C-alpha cells in the first residue's frame, strides 16, 4: 500500500480535506435554528466519535489477525489503531461536554451514548496500559491481541445492552439532536468532515506503524551487537 500511495501525498490530501471541511463547517453549512453557532462543534464531535468507534474495530481486526497469522504487520496495525483511536476518543470526550453545556445546560450525564463512549475510552486505556507494562517482550503481541479481542466483544455487548437499557430507563433528553431534521447542506458537511477525519486517522496510523517498524529494526541491530 505504501508504494501505491506515498505518505507525503497522503498528508497533503489530509490537510486539503481538512481545510475544505473547515470551509464547509463555517461558511457553507447554515446555522442551526435552536442551538446557534455552538452546533458547529457537532461536525467534528460526530467525526471524532465515529472514527474512535471504528478504530477499536480495527484494533480487533488487527488482534484477530495476529492471533491467526502471527504477522508483525497485523500487530503493528492493532497497536497503531489503538493509539490513534485513543487520541480521537479523547477528542470526543472533550468536544462532547463543550457542546452539551451551552445547548443542554449540563456538562455530562450518564445516558446511554455517553456511558458507552466513556467505556470505550477506558478500553483504549486498558489496551495501551497493557502495552506499556508487559515485562516479557515476547508476550506483548499475544497478550494485547487477547485484550483487544475481549475489548471489542465488550463494545458489542455494550451496544446491545444499551439498546435494551434505553427501553427500560427514562433517558434524559440529550443528544437526540444530530439526526433530527438536518438540512442537506449539513449532511454534506457531516460526510465531508467525517471523511477528512478518517483520512487523518489512516495517515496517523501509517506514521505510527512506520515508527513501530523502525523501533524493531533498532532492536534487531542492537541485538546483533549484544
Amino acid at each position, binding site marked *: 500500500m505504501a508504494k501505491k500511495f506515498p505518505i507525503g501525498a497522503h498528508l497533503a490530501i489530509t490537510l486539503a480535506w481538512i481545510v475544505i471541511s473547515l470551509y464547509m463547517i463555517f461558511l457553507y453549512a447554515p446555522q442551526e435554528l435552536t442551538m446557534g453557532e455552538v452546533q458547529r462543534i457537532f461536525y467534528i464531535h460526530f467525526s471524532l466519535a465515529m472514527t474512535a468507534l471504528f478504530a477499536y474495530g480495527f484494533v480487533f481486526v488487527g488482534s484477530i489477525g495476529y492471533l491467526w497469522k502471527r504477522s508483525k504487520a497485523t500487530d503493528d496495525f492493532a497497536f497503531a489503531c489503538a493509539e490513534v483511536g485513543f487520541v480521537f476518543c479523547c477528542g470526543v470526550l472533550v468536544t462532547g461536554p463543550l457542546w452539551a453545556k451551552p445547548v443542554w445546560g449540563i456538562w455530562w450525564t450518564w445516558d446511554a451514548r455517553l456511558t458507552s463512549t466513556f467505556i470505550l475510552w477506558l478500553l483504549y486505556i486498558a489496551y495501551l496500559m497493557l502495552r506499556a507494562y508487559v515485562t516479557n517482550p515476547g508476550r506483548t503481541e*499475544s497478550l494485547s491481541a487477547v485484550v483487544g479481542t475481549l475489548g471489542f466483544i465488550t463494545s458489542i455487548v455494550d451496544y446491545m445492552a444499551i439498546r435494551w437499557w434505553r427501553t427500560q430507563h427514562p433517558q434524559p433528553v440529550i443528544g437526540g439532536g444530530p439526526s433530527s431534521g438536518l438540512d442537506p447542506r449539513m449532511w454534506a458537511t457531516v460526510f465531508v468532515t467525517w471523511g477528512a477525519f478518517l483520512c487523518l486517522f489512516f495517515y496517523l496510523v501509517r506514521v505510527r506503524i512506520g515508527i513501530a517498524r523502525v523501533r524493531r529494526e533498532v532492536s534487531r541491530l542492537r541485538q546483533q551487537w549484544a
Partner: protein
Amino acid sequence: MRAVWTIFVKDLRVEWRTRETAVSMVVFGILVIFLFNFSFNTGREETLRMLPGLLWIAFAFAGVLGFNRSFAAERENGCLEAVTLAPIDPGSIFVGKLLANLVFLGFAEAVMVFVAALWYNFSFVPALGAFAAITFLGTLGYAALGTIFGAVAANTRMREVMLPALQFPVAFWILVLASDACSDALRGADWKVVWGGIERVAGVSLVFTVASFLLFEYVLEE
C-alpha cells in the same frame, strides 16, 4: 477432565493452608459494605434500594483482590511456567482456575450477603432462588474474566493496577445487569421481569466465559 480437577483441587489445597485469599476477600468486601453505610446519609427506604448495587460493588472489588492473589502466587513460585510446560491443555487450566476462583469468590459473597442481611435487617430469603441464580451467573462471567485477565496481568509490571484496569471496563455490563436483576428480584417484581433479568445476565456471562475460555491458550503460550 482429570487435569481440571487436579488444578482445581491444587488451588483449593494451597488456599486451605494459608486461607489468605479467602480471608482478605471477605474482610475487604465487608469493609466496602461498612464504608458505604456511612457514605450516604439516606433513610432505610433508599438504602434498601441501593443494596443490590452496593453488594455488587463489594463483590466486584473483593473479586479483583482474589483474582490478583490467585495468579500472584503462581507467578512467585514459577508455577505458571511449569503448568504451561506440562502436557495439559490450556482449556483445562482455565476451567480449573475458574472453578477455584468461583469457590473463593462465592464463599466471600455468601459471607457478605449474610453480613448485609444482618446490618440492614433485610431478609434475602423470599427471593433467595432468583437472587442466588443471578449471583451465580454473574459471578461466573466475572470470574471467567478475572481468570484470564489475572493471567494477562501476571505478565505485567503493575499487576495490582493492571487487573482492575482490564477487568472493570470489560465486566461493566455483567455487574450492571446483575445488580439490576437482583434489584428486581429483591423488591419482589413479577417473575417475568426477574426471569428476563436472569436471562440477560446469563447471556452476557456466557459470552464472556466462552470468549475467555477460547482466548486463554494465547495468554499461556510461549
